[in-house]
């Protein structure tokens, strides 16, 4: 077993960059600050690639496959002899894969941001937050135990909050950042309770012990049964609630569209490629426990993922803000990954869904980051987010146009682009597990192609609008990351994922099932054709279709009124029937007691302060009369 201690540097370098830029950044020239942030991530990326190469090449043992390695670990909190909280670095196929994803996308976003954020007064602040985010996310994926993961999970939430609210002068951005933080924090409560229950049943936080098929978690078969499911299943469902909050699964998705208030590179990094897949990573990390210990919990994961994916895809067809379309698309694709994990089993052929989910996570990170960065370049050029304010941009922005088109074809699942392979594996896994879920995903594949090409035609085709100035291509510092990611989108599908990232570490034999691959490509093409007919040149068809499906269109356009439902539940029910009585109690009973004590004291002091008149003779008079009275008392007594 080789020494991987140096992987500790991968999260630590961004952390020190964060400290440096956060404390000293205001003294630097913006370009220098950007360069420091970027080069910090660049070193991290190189180290990650080296680690991935070494791990996947040299750690494979015939017969047992890839093992997980604890590269580094210290005891951070020694609570009792049996209960300690450790911090460390865990190297195994999924964490190495996530290292590559995070550092690649983060590096691209850093380079891109040098161009995108040029001239912004908070340039160094932006880069220090990006570094903080990278540190937290890398710490999250390298966590050796679930408690460390929870710590970094919250740090990721904080950095997301800071970056969504980056434009803190804008009230909408502030509201969006608070919403994102509160919703995910609410979900994290479930995660925390889940951790406590899980460690109560199993007696450990450590991932290696937890996921060992012969370990206490799985061997216990879940302990006491509550409402038809074991304690273990309940704890895993609660952990999944935390994952669903971060990954924007229904019904905790409401923060994600609003999170698009942040700068576009942030949306690409956090709300498309890395942070939102933390939930998928969490389930994948605990996958043996889910699959072998509590399959019930896995069904919940599958159905939540499936429902979220179709729910978001329908909404995405009706939105007009390009970043929101991409946000709902992200939610839909993460639904795919969750579903794929949910239908998977552990080990061998059964583990296809697990592999497919991680594969899709990888390809999705590439093409979705590309889409967001492309959208950022477009927004940079035309200064609006609304699709109705765009059109005909292909003449002005050739690089952006081509790379965006590549990403759209990729997400539509057309071979030989990468998402074809990963999506196909997911559909195969779903087909062999549950036909209804397969049908949902099949429809979503068509919808995805449709709304992505609606977006594509809306931006790059059609008539020119009245622009403030002639749109121009973004500078090279922005287009080069686009090209790198486009390269990744095209070729990531050829990586031998089935040999590298599997549920049990052993290579998996996969073969393209044409019975599923051909229809899925066809429905993708169908979606593209419909979008071409409807949106390539501006026609009256979209309005007619919207008119025919009036109610459905209206509901989907208003995001199925989920925000309103939340407002109703919080304002009308929680505020009125829980918060207000508590506030009344606090204001009148708790504060009343305190104010009462203070009031009595004050009243008394006002009443007796007249004695302190400052008149010498009055004092003397009181003194002497007191003496006389005392003398009379003593004379009377004795």
């Amino acid at each position: 077993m080789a020494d991987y201690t140096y992987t500790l540097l991968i999260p630590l370098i961004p952390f020190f960059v964060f400290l440096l830029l956060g404390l000293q950044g205001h003294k630097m020239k913006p370009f220098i600050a950007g360069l420091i942030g970027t080069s910090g991530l660049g070193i991290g990326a190189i180290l990650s690639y080296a680690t991935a190469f070494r791990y996947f090449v040299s750690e494979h043992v015939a017969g047992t496959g890839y093992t997980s390695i604890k590269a580094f670990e210290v005891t951070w909190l020694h609570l009792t002899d049996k209960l300690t909280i450790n911090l460390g670095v865990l190297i195994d196929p999924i964490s190495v894969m996530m290292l590559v994803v995070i550092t690649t996308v983060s590096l691209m976003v850093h380079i891109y941001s040098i161009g995108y954020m040029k001239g912004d007064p908070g340039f160094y602040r932006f880069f220090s937050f990006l570094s903080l985010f990278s540190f937290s996310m890398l710490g999250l994926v390298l966590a050796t135990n679930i408690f460390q993961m929870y710590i970094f999970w919250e740090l990721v939430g904080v950095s997301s909050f800071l970056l969504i609210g980056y434009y803190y002068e804008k009230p909408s951005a502030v509201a969006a950042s608070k919403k994102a933080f509160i919703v995910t924090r609410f979900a994290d409560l479930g995660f925390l309770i889940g951790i406590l229950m899980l460690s109560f049943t199993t007696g450990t936080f450590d991932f290696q012990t937890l996921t060992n098929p012969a370990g206490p978690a799985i061997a216990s078969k879940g302990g006491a049964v509550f409402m038809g499911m074991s304690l273990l299943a309940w704890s895993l469902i609660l952990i999944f609630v935390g994952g669903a909050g971060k990954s924007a699964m229904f019904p905790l998705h409401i923060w994600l569209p609003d999170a698009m208030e942040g700068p576009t590179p942030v949306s690409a990094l956090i709300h498309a490629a890395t942070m939102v897949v933390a939930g998928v990573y969490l389930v994948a990390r605990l996958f043996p426990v889910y699959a072998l210990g509590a399959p019930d919990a896995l069904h919940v994961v599958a159905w939540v993922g499936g429902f979220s994916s179709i729910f978001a895809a329908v909404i995405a067809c009706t939105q007009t803000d390009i970043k929101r379309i991409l946000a709902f698309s992200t939610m839909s694709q993460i639904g795919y990954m969750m579903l794929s994990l949910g239908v998977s089993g552990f080990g061998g052929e059964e583990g296809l869904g697990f592999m497919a989910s991680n594969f899709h996570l990888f390809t999705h990170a590439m093409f979705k980051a590309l889409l967001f960065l492309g959208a950022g370049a477009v927004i940079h050029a035309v200064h609006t987010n609304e699709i109705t304010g765009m059109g005909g941009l292909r003449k002005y922005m050739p690089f952006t146009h081509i790379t965006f088109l590549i990403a759209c074809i990729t997400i539509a699942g057309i071979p030989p682009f990468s998402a074809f392979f990963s999506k196909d594996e997911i559909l195969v896994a779903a087909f062999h597990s549950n036909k209804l879920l397969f049908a949902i995903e099949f429809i979503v594949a068509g919808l995805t192609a449709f709304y992505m090409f609606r977006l594509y035609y809306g931006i790059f085709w059609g008539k020119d609008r009245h622009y403030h100035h002639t749109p121009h291509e973004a500078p090279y510092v922005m287009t080069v990351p686009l090209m790198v990611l486009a390269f990744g989108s095209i070729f990531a599908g050829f990586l031998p994922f089935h040999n590298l990232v599997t549920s049990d570490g052993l290579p998996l034999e996969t073969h393209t099932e044409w019975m599923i691959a051909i229809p899925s490509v066809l429905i993708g093409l169908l979606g593209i054709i419909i979008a071409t007919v409807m949106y390539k040149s501006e026609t009256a068809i979209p309005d007619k279709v919207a008119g025919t499906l009036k109610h459905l269109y209206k509901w989907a356009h208003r995001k199925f009124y989920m925000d309103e439902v939340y407002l109703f539940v919080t304002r009308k029910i929680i505020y009125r029937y829980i918060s207000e009585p508590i506030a009344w109690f606090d204001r009148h009973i708790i504060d009343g007691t305190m104010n009462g004590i203070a009031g009595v004291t004050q009243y008394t002091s006002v009443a007796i302060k007249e004695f302190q008149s400052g008149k010498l003779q009055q004092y003397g008079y009181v003194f002497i009369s007191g003496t006389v009275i005392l003398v009379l008392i003593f004379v009377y007594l004795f």
Partner: protein
Amino acid sequence: MIQNIPLSYYLVISTLMFFIGIYGFLTRRNLITMLMSVELILNSVNINFVAFNRYLYPQQLQGHFFTLIVVAVAAAESAVAIAIIINIYRNFKSVDVENVDEMKY
């Protein structure tokens, strides 16, 4: 002769002086007069000391010496008091005790 005067005579004088002093202290508005009243009180006590010493313990001299100490301390005390009164006069342009009520609530 002095032996023919009974002790009660001294005590009556001293009591009168004491209450005259208290009356003066409480009713006079002039600080100097108040100081004089305080001296009256002190001296009434001195008379008591001397008289009791002479009539009850003629062989001993503690009462006399104690009186001498009180006189000395009273001299020092009136010096301090007069210094205070002068300062009050400089601040308030008056020695009326009614004006000196800054130290209230």
